[in-house]
């Protein structure tokens, strides 16, 4: 029972673990760069969720061919993959902005450690 449960669902369990690691990194890590890494893992887990959800064994790319005809089970669903492409673009933009904010913060406070930055903010205020 338990083995069957895991065997059928292991990609989703893996995705859940990745989501957890990502969220942990974003919220618990003090280093700002590690927060960005956590954010990237979190986003990647979401992309994997879409890809796994759309996965269909025995199907081919969604380009019409004569021999397969209009049989829907013979083709992959392209929509989740398009969603993932869009989400990757959004994710890259967010990471870019996050890195530039990180650079600005580092230039001003000389540290990437959240606690140290807060300390220096209080000192300069």
């Amino acid at each position, binding site marked *: 029972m338990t083995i069957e449960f895991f065997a059928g669902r292991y990609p989703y369990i893996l995705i859940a673990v990745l*989501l957890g690691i990502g*969220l942990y990194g*974003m*919220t618990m890590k003090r280093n*700002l760069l590690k*927060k960005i890494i956590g*954010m990237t893992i*979190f*986003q990647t887990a*979401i992309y994997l*969720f*879409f890809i796994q*959800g759309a996965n269909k064994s025995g199907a081919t790319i969604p380009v019409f061919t004569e021999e397969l005809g209009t049989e829907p089970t013979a083709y992959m669903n392209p*929509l*989740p993959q398009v*969603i993932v492409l*869009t*989400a990757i673009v*959004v994710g890259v*933009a*967010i990471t870019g*902005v*996050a890195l530039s*904010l*990180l650079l*600005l*913060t580092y230039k*001003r*406070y000389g540290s990437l450690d959240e606690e140290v*930055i807060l300390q220096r*903010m209080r000192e*300069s*205020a």
Partner: protein
Amino acid sequence: MSQIPALIPTLLLLAALLSLLAGLRSQRAGHIIALAGGVASFVVAVLGMLEVVSSGQAIRYAMGGWIPPIGIEFVLDHLAAYMTTLITFIGVVVLVYAPRSIRFESPGKATFTYPSIALLLAGLSGMTLTGDVFNLYVFLEIAALAAYALLAIGDKGGPFATFRYLIIGAAGGGFYLLGVGFLYFSAGTLNMADLSAILPELMENRAVMTAAALMVIGLGLKMALFPMHFWMPDVYTNAPSVAASVIAPIMTKVSAYAIIRLFLDVFPQGFFTETLPITATIGWLSAGGILYGSILAIGQQDFRRMLAYSSVGQIAYVGLGIGLANPIGLIGGLLHIVNHALMKGLLFLISGAVRLQTGVTRIPEMKGLGKSMPWTMYAFAIAALAMVGIPPTAGFFSKLYLLIGAVEAGAWIWFAVIIASSLLSAVYFFRVTEMIFRDPGSDPAETAKEEGGEKEHTTPEHPAGEPPASMFIPIAIMAAGVILVGVFNFVIISALLERVVAPLGG
């Protein structure tokens, strides 16, 4: 006329692009283009609203000619018309106000401010207009990215506060996207109208329940729903006045709008109230947020920080309207979106004007401003009265409808919370008002020296006096808006909002 839904965000996107290109040559040209885009989209939004009200029909536009549910459609219905008009109006007012303030507070950053504002407005109006749950995510992140850029050009602590906001925002967007995934894999469509036809058959489906929960958590993070509000005070305190006065009024409200849209138009009736206790949860969290925000606002010394805590409380009124989930309560919540946008926008505009004229941002240093800039301070008094909820200002009516809604629902604790928070608002606003209209015993500049720090930021450009016309006119328009929306609130309700809450059966 059918192009109106697509035209509003497109005009703003175009303005953002052209404004950046022109702005690299001449700041002035960049500003004029962004402003022209804002005005054009405001005019289109008003035309669209009139069309929707007179015909009683939503205007639908299929993007790229792809017929929904295969393609993405943009829908201008009563609720979307209400929101886009508000968004573009605030945008125009802030764009008029922006140049003087931004040149003083963040010199050299003006070129990038105007395109960012246009992009923010494009993202927010796209969120309200789209009829596709994934497209909503894309516009959500467009708006968020523009907001990060705007907020980070602020004071010294700006980038760090914005970084923390970005992490929270990314988590919020991620949860929402995950919810969209669950929804798509169970219902097989992303179109809102299509979803509302399919979902009633899936009422007991656990994947759909997970989807609803994840989407609301994601939007709740973006909306700063208590206790997910913790990023807000730091961000608003360090933001340039221009960014705060465009982001504070509308950004969190549009996320609240997205929750209302899911609640009313996407998920089947009873799903958010009975199948999953989402509205009740939002209501209780909001009740906590109202008290928390109002109490913390009392102790703040920085004017902008006080406004930020007050925003935590005020956005929760909208959440309370969702929580009541009866027509009159939700009308109160929806009306509070516009009311609070006008009041809080006005207050942040005033804080920017005060900063430009005197360099003051802390409440104890605001002593005697009633003498030196009396008209601006009258506008402040109007905003303060509205925040407390004194008739005939706008703030009174939304609280009145919320109270009636609470009575109808028999939610006496929420009733008490609304009353208590009005009293608390009175405490923190009268504290400021008293300081402003008190006789200037000591010169504000002297107090600033005693406090020490932030000298380079607080050097006044002018000796105290009324702000320049480009800043005072927006303040006056917003102050007039606070009173007019209050007096004519029944027009808004009968023309737009009654239709919006019709699904609840009112």
